[in-house]
């Protein structure tokens, strides 16, 4: 069946698959959000350790999902990989630096003779959860606001500014997108603490943190939504492949793809429900509503950027260099092979879910941090 799919369908399918992976990554940034809560929600070293150990069981999943997101983009949309990573050089480099810092921080923070001291590794975690996520948000924001680049006839990228992508963080829309993701991650992190930690004072503060951070996220969310509904967008003429600016393009996309509007509204509603249930009704399962909601919002955002004859990585300096899911993709053969490989994804999700359930069956307690396996704790 997969072998009979045409190239266009495969391109659309792979945009969906990468969108799912990217959206799952957004949910899993609760780890990054949790990392930033160690300086605001924890009131003692013990509570800090509880948060870090709660997040520490999951940091690798987030990291791996980011790596898979990169790998999927490389395999399915290599021209995007080449253009964005080679062009918006500094944004990606800074994001990478923060993730490198994160990868070692869990393991090294509490180990004796760690050279830099526990506090430094905690700052690394904070930077990963704040600057790292902010820049990822700004990078995703450029899917709508565009970047300054042009492609040669051999698709070699020339970036239009000496800042190589850092200029993206100066756009109010991109900045709002980044800040929204930072506060959303903190909201999710707080809900995960409520779900996974058995330490009442910390859990109470995490409940409060969930709605406080959602409130902080709201103005940025509204800025993003207002921007999306009113801005000019980068449309593609399906007959000629020519890119042109269209007034209210993303609003048109929402109207033209009502399912996406449902995803967006349903996702936001689910996040809000999760926070209200966590913050005001003493529920512990808010993270699941928050998680599902985040995935739905992510899918809506990626759909708005990539489907309905839209350029998902637009160039503001050379419109015809803009990338669409059609001109940036791999060949039909490669997408077909990769689609067979993608059949494994549900199995991967199944064993991840099984092990997650198994490991989270018992809540994390202070006793566990000081017990027999204290040496292994983060």
């Amino acid at each position, binding site marked *: 069946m997969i072998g009979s799919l045409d190239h266009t369908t495969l391109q659309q399918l792979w945009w969906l698959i990468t969108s799912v992976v990217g959206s799952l990554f957004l949910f899993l940034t609760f780890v990054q959000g949790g990392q930033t809560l160690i300086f605001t929600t924890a009131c003692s070293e013990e509570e800090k350790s509880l948060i870090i150990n709660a997040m520490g*069981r*999951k940091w*690798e*999943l987030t*990291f*791996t999902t980011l*790596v*898979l997101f*990169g*790998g*999927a983009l*490389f*395999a*399915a949309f*290599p*021209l995007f*990989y*080449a*253009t964005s*990573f*080679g062009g918006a*050089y500094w944004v*990606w*480099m800074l994001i*990478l*630096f923060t993730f*490198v810092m994160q*990868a*070692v921080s869990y*393991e*090294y923070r509490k*180990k*004796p003779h*760690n*050279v*830099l001291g526990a506090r430094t590794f905690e700052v690394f975690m904070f930077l990963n959860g704040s600057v790292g996520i902010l820049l990822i948000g700004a990078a995703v924001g450029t899917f709508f606001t565009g970047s300054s680049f042009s492609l040669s*006839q*051999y*698709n*070699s*990228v020339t970036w239009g500014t000496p800042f*190589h992508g850092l200029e993206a963080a100066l756009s109010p829309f991109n900045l709002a997108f980044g800040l929204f993701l930072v506060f959303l991650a903190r909201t999710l992190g707080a809900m995960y603490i409520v779900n996974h930690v058995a330490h009442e004072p910390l859990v109470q503060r995490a409940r409060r943190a969930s709605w406080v951070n959602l409130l902080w996220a709201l103005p940025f969310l509204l800025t993003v939504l207002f921007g999306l509904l009113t801005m000019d967008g980068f449309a593609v003429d399906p007959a000629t492949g020519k890119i042109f600016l269209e007034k209210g393009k993303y609003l048109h996309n929402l109207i033209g793809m009502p399912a996406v509007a449902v995803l967006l509204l349903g996702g936001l509603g689910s996040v809000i429900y999760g926070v209200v249930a966590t913050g005001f009704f003493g529920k512990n399962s808010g993270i699941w509503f928050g998680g599902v909601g985040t995935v739905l919002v992510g899918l809506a955002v990626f759909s708005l950027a990539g489907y309905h004859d839209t350029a998902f990585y637009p160039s503001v300096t050379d419109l015809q260099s803009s990338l669409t899911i059609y001109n940036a993709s*791999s*060949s039909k*053969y*490669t997408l077909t*092979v*990769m689609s067979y*490989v993608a059949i494994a*994804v549900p199995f*991967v999700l199944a064993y*991840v879910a099984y*092990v997650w359930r*198994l*490991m989270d069956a*018992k809540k994390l307690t202070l006793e566990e941090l000081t017990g*027999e*396996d204290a*040496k*292994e704790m983060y």
Partner: protein
Amino acid sequence: MGDQILTTVDWARAQFALTAMYHWIFVPLTLGLSFLIAFFESIYLKTGDEEWKKLTKFWMTLFGVNFAVGVATGIILEFQFGTNWSNYSWMVGDIFGAPLAIEGIFAFFIEATFFSVMFFGWNKVSKGFHLFSTWMVALGANLSAVWILVANGWMQFPTGMAFNPDKARFEMQNFWEVALSPVAVQKFTHTTSSAFLLAALFVVGVSALFLLQKRHQLMARRSMVVAAVFGFIASFFVAFNGDESAFNVARRQPMKLAAMEGLYQGQEKAPMVVLGVINADKKPGDNLPAFHQEVKIPSMLSLLANRDPDSFVPGINDLVYGNAARNIVGAEQRMITGKIAVSALASYKLAKEKVDAPAAAAALALFNKHKGDLGYGYLITPAQAAPPVALTFYSFRVMVVLGTLFPLIFLLVLFFSFKGTLEKQRWLLQACVASIFLGYVAQQAGWVVAEVGRQPWAIQGLLPVGVASTNIAASQVQVTFFIFLTLFTALLLAEIRIMMKQIKIGPEV
């Protein structure tokens, strides 16, 4: 312009080499130690002896410290293909991206999911499931090696693809040819078995230190026996597929073989230089001697390269300037046809833009005639086709000499262990400790041979590094190079200090 591009390429190469070399300090230990830990835990489950559990947890702690930096440097490598090698990413992403994505789906998630059970699940899951998780981490880590080495194997021996002139990129035609190419298979077996060997050296060396210090002696003796058996078996795999590797190189990368041997003038009954001092002034095509001093074994190179002691092995001069008598077309000639291909491709693109069908067809026909040499069209001088000879030559010898030494160490450890006098052989225990460092030297030397020997190509014979890099100012890559250098060095120092402290603490605490 030309100078700037060269400088950017140089910094990009330096940065990739830096990241890869740091990455390969941590990864081989992860690949091998994961299996050793799985062996230790299996014995614990079988015997129920708590000493084995304590031993397992001790090595697991060191595994965790090492694993983190391997993960951190790994993500940089993946994304560096995009940041520093964006033309490469576009030109071969259709083929190269797939193994990376498969690595993520099939391997990294296994590793990431079961890693947390392995470390934090002792009291949360059954003993059987815990052991299963430990094996899954070992499997996941080594599965990830499969796919990245498939990708690297394809860079050494590009196969299963074709050039698409409309897109100006290479596209995959046969996935199985890419995944199961003999070079990819051999890369995987040689690299993973050498990683097992390094991990065995690490366990043997740290255990030897305990014996020298008369601490944790039971744990040390047990660890040493298991690791020495594992390392001894791995050594034979390394030697066997190392020979296969050289045989493959002779077939698919003759220039790399010539550089590995410092062989400038091809000959029949080619000797192997066992030891030699390379003449640094020697250049392709001149009359200077290749060596200041050399010790040779007659006909050995012909025998190893072609399984025939009388056979002809081409040298650097043959491959650069050609050898009509042997039907070898040199880089000099291939550059001429390559430049025709480059020009025909440009004409084709222009004709397509002008919607001039006859001109496009003519240009395409000319391009198709010469497309096999397209990559050579981007070289500036024929001599550029030769990799740095001295570095490749010496690295190869370091790798081989050390690779020959290690099985002897494992054998001696096993011999004295079974005799029950291992603790008394202080010279051997000291050699075991020193071998940890030597193991890392051999690993790095192996990759230098593989990667420096492939130069000037990013993709052997198809894409020179100068065309593969990103169009960005050298200063920007230079800055990130030094940031990475500082960051990786700090992390390495932290890792070494933490490891040493954990070894000092030992398994009791």
